[in-house]
């Protein structure tokens, strides 16, 4: 029960942070990505603020053997750079620039009721399903060559 309360509170803090920082406004996101135009560096300040706080607290928290309300930490351990990481991130970036939304701000912005956000999030979930379909086809041997061992790439970083 405690862990559900902290998950909910974390979600609230996360979305308030996104809203205050301006990241729920696609125009500010695309203005950050517009390096040769009317550049808005605000998103860099968001990253600096978030990473400074989390990098410091991460080191303190990881001194604990376990989290407070769970039996173990679930933290990615992979170090390899593979084509899926780069290709997936490249596709994500194109969609991010195209729509001005990444997943967190998009989900938060559903609360606005804007139809454009609803379309984006529905398509995003569709894209996640499509990935599962493609992955399922590969699992069943449609594309057996060039497979990484034991689907290790399926382990999520996030």
């Amino acid at each position, binding site marked *: 029960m405690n862990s*559900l309360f902290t998950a909910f509170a974390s979600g609230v803090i*996360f979305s308030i942070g996104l809203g205050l920082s301006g990241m729920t406004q696609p125009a500010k996101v695309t203005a950050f990505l517009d390096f040769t135009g009317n550049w808005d560096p605000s998103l860099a300040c*968001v990253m600096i603020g978030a990473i400074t706080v989390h990098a410091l607290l991460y080191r303190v928290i990881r001194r604990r053997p376990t989290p407070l309300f769970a039996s173990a930490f679930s933290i990615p351990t992979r170090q390899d750079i593979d084509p899926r990481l780069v290709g997936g991130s490249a*596709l994500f970036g194109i969609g991010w620039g195209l729509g001005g939304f990444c997943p*967190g701000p998009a989900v938060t912005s559903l609360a606005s009721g804007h139809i*454009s956000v609803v379309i984006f999030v529905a398509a995003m979930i569709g894209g996640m399903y499509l990935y599962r379909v493609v992955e399922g086809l590969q699992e069943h041997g449609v594309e057996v060559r060039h497979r990484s061992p034991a689907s290790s790439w399926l382990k999520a970083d996030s």
Partner: protein
Amino acid sequence: MEQFTPLPSLIGGMLIGVSASAMLLFNGKIAGISGIVAGLLNPTKNDTLWRGVFIAGLLAGGLLLRVFSPQAFTIAISRSWVALVLAGMLVGFGTRLGNGCTSGHGVCGLSRFSPRSLIATITFVATGAAAVYVINHLLGGTL
């Protein structure tokens, strides 16, 4: 540069860092939104409820913003629904293939100095910038 908002963006970013740290300290989880959402689509025992509750928290915070800070939801970019569908599909598919998004790789991964997250972040900022360059400077800002 006239729309640059260094202080609110820094403070908002720090709140995101607090949230990610709280998820780690209390729940032992990475606050990566694409991974949390994707996990909801493939429910497994004991690993679904916290995801739903976190997303409910995001939406609750969104409702608070809607009431107290409605300018947070200014869209102000011109995109057709076709462009939005394509963008959403690319974000959904790409974040699964690449195992993370701006939060999972950009905030959480960079904070623990993950080389994978550094490469991912450089890549999505680069292709995002390329997409915006094409739209704003070759296509006149609408799509």
